[in-house]
C-alpha cells in the first residue's frame, strides 16, 4: 500500500508492504540515514524518532503505522536549541563512534521540550532507553547539562 506522511518537514509518499518497519523504510526507501539499526528489539534506542512529537522506536513500528502522521528524525530537528545541543555535544565530547548519537540527540531534544531545567538524575532517567556502546554517558549528560545551564530554549 502507499502511505503518506510528513518526514522532517516535507511530505513524502512511499509504497510499503505491511511487514516493513518504519526504520527500514526511512533508511532504505527514503534515504534518511540518521536513525540507526542496532539491536532491533527495543533495547538500545539507536533507531529513536519522534512520531507526532513523541519519541518511539522505529525498529518496532510498522511503516503503515506512520501513515498520515509526522515523523521527525535527528536530521529533521533544527532551530536554535538543536544548534545549541549540537555545539554542546561537540564541546563535551559527547560523540565518540557516533552510532548512538542520532538517538541520543532526538531524546535530548524531546527531554528539553518536556522539561526546561532537568536535573542530572532526570537526564539520566530520560536517556535510560538509549545505550552508548562506547559507554560515553558522562559526556552526553554533560552536553545536555551545558544547554540547560545556558538557558535551553529561548
Amino acid at each position, binding site marked *: 500500500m502507499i502511505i503518506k506522511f510528513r518526514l522532517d518537514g516535507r511530505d513524502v509518499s512511499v509504497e510499503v508492504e505491511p511487514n516493513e*518497519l518504519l526504520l*527500514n523504510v526511512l533508511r532504505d526507501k527514503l534515504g534518511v540515514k540518521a536513525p540507526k539499526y542496532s539491536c532491533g528489539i*527495543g533495547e538500545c534506542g539507536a533507531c529513536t524518532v519522534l512520531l507526532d512529537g513523541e519519541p518511539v522506536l522505529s525498529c518496532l513500528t510498522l511503516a503503515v*503505522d506512520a501513515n498520515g502522521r509526522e515523523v521527525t528524525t535527528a536530521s529533521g530537528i533544527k532551530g536554535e536549541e538543536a544548534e545549541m545541543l549540537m555545539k554542546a555535544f561537540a564541546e563535551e565530547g559527547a560523540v565518540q563512534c557516533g552510532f548512538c548519537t542520532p538517538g541520543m540527540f532526538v531524546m535530548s531534544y524531546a527531554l528539553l521540550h518536556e522539561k526546561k531545567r532537568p536535573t542530572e538524575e532526570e537526564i539520566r532517567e530520560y536517556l*535510560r*532507553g*538509549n545505550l552508548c556502546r562506547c559507554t560515553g554517558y558522562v559526556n552526553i549528560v554533560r552536553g545536555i547539562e551545558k544547554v540547560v545551564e545556558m538557558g535551553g530554549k529561548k
Partner: protein
Amino acid sequence: MMSSLNRMNTRIIPFSFSYHEPTSLEEALSLLSKLGADGKILAGGTDLIVKMKARQAEPRHIINIKKIKELRYITVDEDKIRIGALATWRDLEKSSHIISRIPSLLDAASVMGGVQIRNMATIAGNICNASPAADSAPPFLVHGARVKAMSEKGARFVPIDSFFIAPGKTALMPEEMVVEIEIPLPPPSSSSAFLKLARTSMDLAKVSAAAYLKVDGGTIEEARVALGAVAPKPIRAPSVEKELIGKPATEETFKNASKHVVKDISPIDDIRSTASYRKKTSPYLVTDALLTALSRIGGEKR
C-alpha cells in the same frame, strides 16, 4: 525470549501478513470473530513485533487497534479506576493523580522500560503478552483487578487471578480482546508497593513482588502478596498472606511470613537468573514490599 539474540535477524519481519486498521471497536470485534486465531491484535507492538521478528509469533492477520481512539483513557469512577486498552505506560505516569491511589502500579510504571517503550507499550498489552515477568501483573494481582474482555457476542469480566494461564497464554478466547482493566479503589488505611530485582531498572525482572496491606489499629486486616518471574505465570503467595492476616503489622511479622514464599513459587534457571537465586531473594523482596506498603499507610501515599 532473547536467548538466541545473536543468531536472530532482528532487522526485518521475515513473513507476510494481511493488515487491518479498524477505526471502531465494532469493526475490530467483527474482524476478530471472522479471523479467530489467525488474527492478532497490535497495539504498542513492543512485545508482538519482537516476537514476529523472531518468528515466535507468526500471525496471518494483524489487527492494528491504535486508530480506535476511544480506547485510550484512564478514568476514575466512584469505586474503581478504569484503564482503557490503548492507555500507555506514559499515560499512566501522566495520570499519577489517579494512579497514586494504586501505589504499586505507579511503582511499576516508573521501572517499566525506557521513555520510548513507555510511549509505545500499552498496559493491556503488558497483561495480554502474559510474560511471567510482566511488571503490571503483581500490582494488578494484589489489587484484585479484573479484565473486561469483549467479543461480538458481548463483554465478560475475567478476574486477574484467572487471567494468566501459562507463559504467553491468557484466558482470552481467540475472538476476544481486552477493552479495559478495572481496579477497585482501595479502602482507607491501605496501601501497596511493587519492587523488582533486575540488571538495570528498565530490564525484565529476575524477581518482582507486590504487596497490599490494610491495617487497622496496628493489626493486619487484609494482606495480598504477588510475585513475578518465579513461576510459569505471575502468582499470588497464599502461604505468605495466611501468615500475615490478623497479626501485628511489624517487621518481625513480615520477615516470618515472607519465609513461607518458597512454598508458593517454582522458579527456573533462565538467561536472567537462576532458580536458586530467585528462591533466596524472594523472601527479602516480599519483606521489603510489605515494609514499603506499610510505610505508605496513613502517611503520604507516594
